[in-house]
């Protein structure tokens, strides 16, 4: 009987571990808790590492423009398009009147956001974006 109790206590000690156990994803419960607590998502209270925002203007003769941001890890970063605006245009074809409005953006590399459009229409276009990097 005593031997069985001792075996059960020994099993529990191994499973729960000690507060001094080093962090491990496969160790005791204490080690696993230390492992989870050490994760940046938990330590910082958020999965988001950084948010950057900006606005780029493509001037009247441009179809592409690149803005610089703080370095991000592109594999862990999303780029949000917040909208674009442009003035009307007084050309004669429908394509000329609207083509310069349609702007797209891309995270070109770790420090660059680029705005592009197919047609400048001799009018500037303004585009806003948000860069969200995760841990």
């Amino acid at each position, binding site marked *: 009987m005593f031997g069985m109790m001792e075996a059960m206590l020994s099993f529990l000690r191994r499973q729960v571990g000690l507060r001094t156990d080093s962090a491990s994803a496969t160790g005791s419960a204490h080690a696993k808790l230390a492992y989870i607590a050490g994760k940046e998502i938990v330590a910082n209270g958020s999965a988001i590492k950084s948010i950057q*925002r*900006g606005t780029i203007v493509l001037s009247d003769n441009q179809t592409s423009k690149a803005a610089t941001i703080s370095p991000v890890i592109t594999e862990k970063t999303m780029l949000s398009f917040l909208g674009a605006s442009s003035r009307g245009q007084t050309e004669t074809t429908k394509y000329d009147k609207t083509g310069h409005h349609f702007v797209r953006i891309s995270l070109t590399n770790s420090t660059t956001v680029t705005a592009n459009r197919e047609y400048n229409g001799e009018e500037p276009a303004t585009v806003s974006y948000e860069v969200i990097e995760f841990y």
Partner: protein
Amino acid sequence: MPYYAQIDAEGICFAVTQTAGEINRADMIEIDSLDESILLKKYVNGAWETVPEEPQTEPEPPK
């Protein structure tokens, strides 16, 4: 988080950005806020000057 205005070779502001950290580049001017009113203005001796727009030509009326 710092704010920057980015200027082209002529000193014209083409982007304003709220970055995650400090950026040290000659074409990035630190500003106080994400102020979009300085877009397309020229940076001259520490101040933003409005660049006069070229007059647009009116389309010819249909004949």
